[in-house]
């Protein structure tokens, strides 16, 4: 469904992406995980034709974004990191314009608006102006807009950034629901728990390169199952263990201030790059 080969992009002398390649299968949630400045947004902007690439190839459902731009654009919906709704227009008007931009007839647009506002629990805000909506409602509307033309691929750039934990969880629920309804989802995030909860596959992006790509379980399996965080000379250190018992006996042999927890994707990222994600 999404095929990316040897993608490169430089901004001045700085390489934002250096030979990035990956593919995402149908009905898969693929999380692109990396720290700020790793190249996540640049990738998604190139895939959605918003930014030029210097080299490489991108195919969306077999349509090359360079050779068949209009066909490629009709394959996806985009939930951008920054809210880009028309604040002077209402919820319904924003959706209407999107539908017309995607060549839908007005009858179908009306039906889909009805369905999506109901799906995203926004029906009572149909006539509200965008400037009166909260951040969480705007995010849900951005997702509704991206789904209006029934795309087979959904790009989500940091879909829950800046939202409180309760709203974040409700949006995760919607994302799972959308995948279960048949869409392929490519999302960028720097929230570890988001990638762990949602993704079938995760790619670690660091300094414009993919350093690892696998299922969340496989990515963490190499370093153990349990982690112990402890202070050593006022610096936070982490030790990894394959069983809880071993982690427990390690804690007993150390002074106070140890925390036992499950190993997560951030541990795997640090093990591979020596750097934190968030």
């Amino acid at each position: 469904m999404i095929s990316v080969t040897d993608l490169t992009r430089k901004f001045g002398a700085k390489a934002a992406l250096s030979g990035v390649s990956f593919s995402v299968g149908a009905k898969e949630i693929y999380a692109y995980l990396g720290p700020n400045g790793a190249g996540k947004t640049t990738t998604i902007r190139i895939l959605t034709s918003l930014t030029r690439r210097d080299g490489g190839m991108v195919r969306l459902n077999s349509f090359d974004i360079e050779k068949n731009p209009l066909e490629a654009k009709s394959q996806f919906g985009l939930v951008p990191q920054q809210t880009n709704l028309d604040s002077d227009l209402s919820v319904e008007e924003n959706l209407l314009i999107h539908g017309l931009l995607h060549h839908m007839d007005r009858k179908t647009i009306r039906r889909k608006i009805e369905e999506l506002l109901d799906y995203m629990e926004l029906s009572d805000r149909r006539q509200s102006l965008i400037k009166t909506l909260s951040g969480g409602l705007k995010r849900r509307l951005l997702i509704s807009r991206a789904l209006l033309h029934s795309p087979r691929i959904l790009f989500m750039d940091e879909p829950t950034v800046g939202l409180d934990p309760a709203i974040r969880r409700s949006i995760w629920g919607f994302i799972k629901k959308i995948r279960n309804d048949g869409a392929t989802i490519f999302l960028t995030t720097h929230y570890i728990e988001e990638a762990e909860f949602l993704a079938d596959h995760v790619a670690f992006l660091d300094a414009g390169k993919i350093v690892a790509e696998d299922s969340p379980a496989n990515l963490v399996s190499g370093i153990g199952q349990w982690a112990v965080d402890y202070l050593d000379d006022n610096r936070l250190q982490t030790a990894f263990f394959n069983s809880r018992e071993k982690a427990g006996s390690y804690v007993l042999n150390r002074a106070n201030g140890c925390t036992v927890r499950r190993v997560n994707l951030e541990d795997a990222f640090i093990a591979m790059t020596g750097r934190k994600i968030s």
Partner: protein
Amino acid sequence: MTRGWTAVYLREILILKRRLAKLLPTWSVSPLLYLIAFGYAVGRHVEVGSHSYLEFLLPGLTAMASMTQAYAVASEINIARFYWHIFDEFQTAPISNLAYVMGEVLAGMTRAFLASLVILVLGACFGVVLFYGPMFWIALLLNSFVFASLAVGCAMHVKSHADQTLLTNFIITPMAFLGGTFFPLSHLPDWGQMLLGLLPLTHASHAVRAAAFQEPVQSIDFLVLIGAGGLCFLFAILSVNRAKA
């Protein structure tokens, strides 16, 4: 190739509709001041040919308002690009550059048409009612087509809203004063007339004034406006891809 232009146009019109109550007074202020200062106070006892200065001024002001409001679509595009990021919504939609430019240019022309109506109403308040036949409106539409197309092209090239203001100060403001709006070009030396004859607004003012005075409109004025409009429209279409980062 043109599918989707209605969405671009409809968006601008919905925004215009919502802001119209605020825009109408804004469109009236400058022309009203020009009419009072130049037309009524200074030009009260001045005649240009067989017409009063107010009668001479009104078609020029109408052409000028049509130009400035058509060009104002550039600011709307820049706000959508740099502040609201709504331009991304057009860039990711399966529409051609031609469809996008068509929608924005028509939105600019609509603004220009409404602003021209405001001037004519203000003129009527000052007791100036001229002949507003088809040639008058064709000239105004062509004028707005030129400047709305130029606006879309320029909006794609600028890197910030401040750049847009700079362009307006260097292109639109001088043209507004020198394009046959406030004085007859025949008062200038030959080289000045030739130079100002290169400005599209000069031809628009000529054509609009001639039509309003029920005099024959020179075909050269229409030809220049059509040519300039075609070039600016092409410039706009070719510029859309430049807006990509």
